[in-house]
């Protein structure tokens, strides 16, 4: 896992032209618990898995309302996510104050990306260790963006980040072509199904997941637990198998242990994908 001599600080290039510190930051995102997002023409749904560290503690907040028309789901270092959410909220408030209209999502995402880039080019800083799924609505329609620690951002029809997100991505790849014309409820159902995929056997309950919606005529809000549970029951989503042993809980973001995970090899730099 150690790429050795060239990974001490973010301002050092490797001979292969990579910034290992930035790649390590993206590794932190992969260690966080899953977050998914999907959009239709008129709505965007965000969902995330909420695993509490212990039975005694509450779970971490991973979905933040940024403005009436924008919300964000994070995976990775939650503290970094909280700080970035505060920045995004401020930007929306200031833009609205000056222009008396909502900040277009695409603009916000670029500002966020530029901030992230700064942290990849200062020797006294470190990259943000959080990936953000930004869901928003503006005049040009519904949008879902992914902002990563490298300072890159991409727009998606549907995406999943965090641990075991590949399972969700596989599900979304099967479904994404139909998403554009989905109704709001179908979109939420797909989100719940995608979350279920990341749980890999564990029963899907509203207590371990959070779902938020934004859409035309519907300001961004987090669905309350009861509504989510009702939807789960209605769509008859049950765990595929009741795993007898508890799933190894590697889903808490901060434990970025040096996992010999099958993430990147010495080949393509992940930022270029």
């Amino acid at each position, binding site marked *: 896992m150690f790429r050795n001599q060239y990974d001490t600080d973010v301002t050092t290039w490797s001979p292969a032209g990579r910034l290992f510190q930035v790649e390590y930051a993206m590794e932190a995102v992969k260690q966080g618990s899953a977050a998914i997002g999907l959009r239709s023409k008129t709505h965007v749904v965000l969902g995330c898995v909420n695993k509490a560290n212990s039975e005694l503690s509450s779970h971490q907040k991973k979905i933040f*309302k940024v403005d009436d028309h924008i919300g964000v789901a994070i995976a990775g270092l939650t503290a970094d996510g909280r700080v970035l959410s*505060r920045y995004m*909220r*401020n930007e929306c*408030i*200031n833009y*609205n*104050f000056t222009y008396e209209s909502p900040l277009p999502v695409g603009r916000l995402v670029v500002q966020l990306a530029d901030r992230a880039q700064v942290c990849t080019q200062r020797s006294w800083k470190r990259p943000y260790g959080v990936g953000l799924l930004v869901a928003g609505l503006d005049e040009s329609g519904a949008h879902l963006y992914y902002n990563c620690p490298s300072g890159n951002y991409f727009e998606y029809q549907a995406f999943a980040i965090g641990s075991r997100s590949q399972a969700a991505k596989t599900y979304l790849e099967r479904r994404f072509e139909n998403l554009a014309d989905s109704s709001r409820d179908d979109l939420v159902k797909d989100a719940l199904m995608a979350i279920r995929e990341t749980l890999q056997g564990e029963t899907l309950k509203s207590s371990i997941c959070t779902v938020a919606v934004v859409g035309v005529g519907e300001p961004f809000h987090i669905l309350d637990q009861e509504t989510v549970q009702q939807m789960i029951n209605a769509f008859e989503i049950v765990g595929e198998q009741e795993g007898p042993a508890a799933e190894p809980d590697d889903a808490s973001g901060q434990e970025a242990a040096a996992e010999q995970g099958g993430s990147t090899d010495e080949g393509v730099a992940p930022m270029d994908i």
Partner: protein
Amino acid sequence: MTKQQANWSPYDNNGGSCVAIAGADYCVIAADTRMSTGYNILTRDYSKICKLADKCVMASSGFQADVRALQKQLAARHLIYQHQHNKQMSCPAMAQLLSNTLYYKRFFPYYSFNVLGGLDNEGKGCVFTYDAVGSYEKVGYSSQGSGSTLIMPFLDNQLKSPSPLLLPAQDAVTPLVEAEAIDLVKTVFASASERDIYTVRRQTRTCYHKCSWYPPGIHGT
């Protein structure tokens, strides 16, 4: 050679009057709808009332450009509060915020004479009255603006409440029923509009009631 004096003022007075009356479980806030400059009318149909929070409404007379800027400031601050506290600001909290915001510009004030009205956390009516630099007081009723010199004595006569300085503290809210208070407000504007050229009978009026509340509407006479 005499000293040069400024012949341009950043301020203008757009006139108008605002009134608020608090009751045991309601609050009535009203402001007339005329906006003037000098001896001219700019518009007959302007609302000087602004909803700041779920249960808090501000009526402001004075220089409407400053009023608008003040309203935007408070709205932005309220959004930040909601993000941080996950709830709406209460009326007393907003009252303090307004005072601080006004005093922040102590040396280039908002030319805005405000009356804040709403329900406090127990559902009791509350009214706060301000000067242009943020000095404020919780009262049972108040009026501000060009007609206040005509309105206030009449309200004092009808609603006089015990001084807030008394010990033990006595209730400032009026014992009147909501319908009576609304009637009183209508009468007050009818009277003030007789002699104050900047005030008209037509008003926007908001009534907050503990059980339900009515969004601001244009109410005639």
